[in-house]
């Protein structure tokens, strides 16, 4: 009898744990909106959503908000002449790419924070050096101010600093974005455990329905 109770309790705890895991947080400030529902004024809160963007990738293709519409994606910020953390970040991002290679619901966006030097041709060479040709992983260049503006909107840091190695500083974050453009996770792209966490949380996010 006692055993049955114990098993039931453990089962409930385990179930709870699963439930907690299936809810990834939504990052960013919420916006309050007032709307009329059944003749009454109610205040609702809207989730933080990334603003529209448009850049060019290593194959000269335009990549914008509609490229990632209805898909989940991982974003990071890098530059091709980066001597410090970028190679390690690329090594870890290759794990993401390898796992979801055939999944059309997954996109990777790597924004160059040195877009003046990182031309389309240079990004193409960089992709070749990684040993991949991928329609799924976009290396992006474009207007510098737009990229720094967007980094800010992703809630990560990126800036120019002549004293830093390579002339730019940025954190090594991988950012997980859901089908509606909401920020759902931050991971250290130079840390193997953190990237393993990203891989498992991407599976959770893929199961979330589009209209949720």
């Amino acid at each position, binding site marked *: 009898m006692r055993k049955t109770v114990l098993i039931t309790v453990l089962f409930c705890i385990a179930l709870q744990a699963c439930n907690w895991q299936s809810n990834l947080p939504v990052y960013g400030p919420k916006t309050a909106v007032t709307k009329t529902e059944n003749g009454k004024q109610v205040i609702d809160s809207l989730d933080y959503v990334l603003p529209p963007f448009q850049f060019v990738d290593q194959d000269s293709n335009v990549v914008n908000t509609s490229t990632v519409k209805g898909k989940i994606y991982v974003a990071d910020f890098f530059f091709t*002449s*980066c*001597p*410090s*953390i970028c*190679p*390690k970040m*690329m*090594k870890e991002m*290759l794990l993401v790419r390898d796992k979801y290679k055939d999944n059309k619901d997954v996109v990777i966006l790597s924004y160059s924070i040195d877009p003046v030097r990182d031309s389309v041709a240079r990004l193409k060479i960089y992709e*070749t*050096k*990684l*040993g991949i040709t991928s329609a799924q992983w976009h290396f992006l260049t474009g207007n510098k101010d737009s990229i720094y503006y967007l980094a800010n909107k992703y809630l990560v840091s990126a800036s120019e600093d002549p004293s830093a*190695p*390579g002339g730019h500083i940025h954190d090594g974050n991988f950012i997980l974005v859901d089908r509606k453009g909401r920020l759902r996770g931050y991971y250290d792209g*130079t840390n193997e455990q953190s990237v393993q966490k990203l891989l498992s949380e991407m599976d959770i996010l893929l199961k979330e329905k589009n209209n949720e």
Partner: protein
Amino acid sequence: MSSKKILQFIARFAIPIIIILFIYNIYSHGTIIHPGKALFKAQCSQCHGEDGEGIKALVPPLQNSDYALRNLDSIPCWLKFGINHPVIVHDTVYDQPMYPSEIDEVQTANVINFMNREFFKYDREVNPEWVKEKWKNCK
């Protein structure tokens, strides 16, 4: 043989043999952890990999690096001042810069000794004086 006798046998012979093998293992490897290994893991393995395997065509491998073997005297300079020119390792061109570091002569000698043994299979011990001498001729 009763189970008591088996236990006695283990206590008398097997345990001392295991201890002896353990001690021998530590001594045969010189030290327990090479000081250069710890520094390599902390400072270099992020890009070059813990086994010196490198990253694709971005970061050159160190394992049996022909470029390193041809330029052994330049390694102290690379560790301290970085590399800002393309290098060719195993017929592949690598042109990502390597960044400089604030490393002293003792640390440099330790890392070089670790890499010589582990990656370059080159049987030579260097000391801090040798490192300082090489630093004078860095370009």
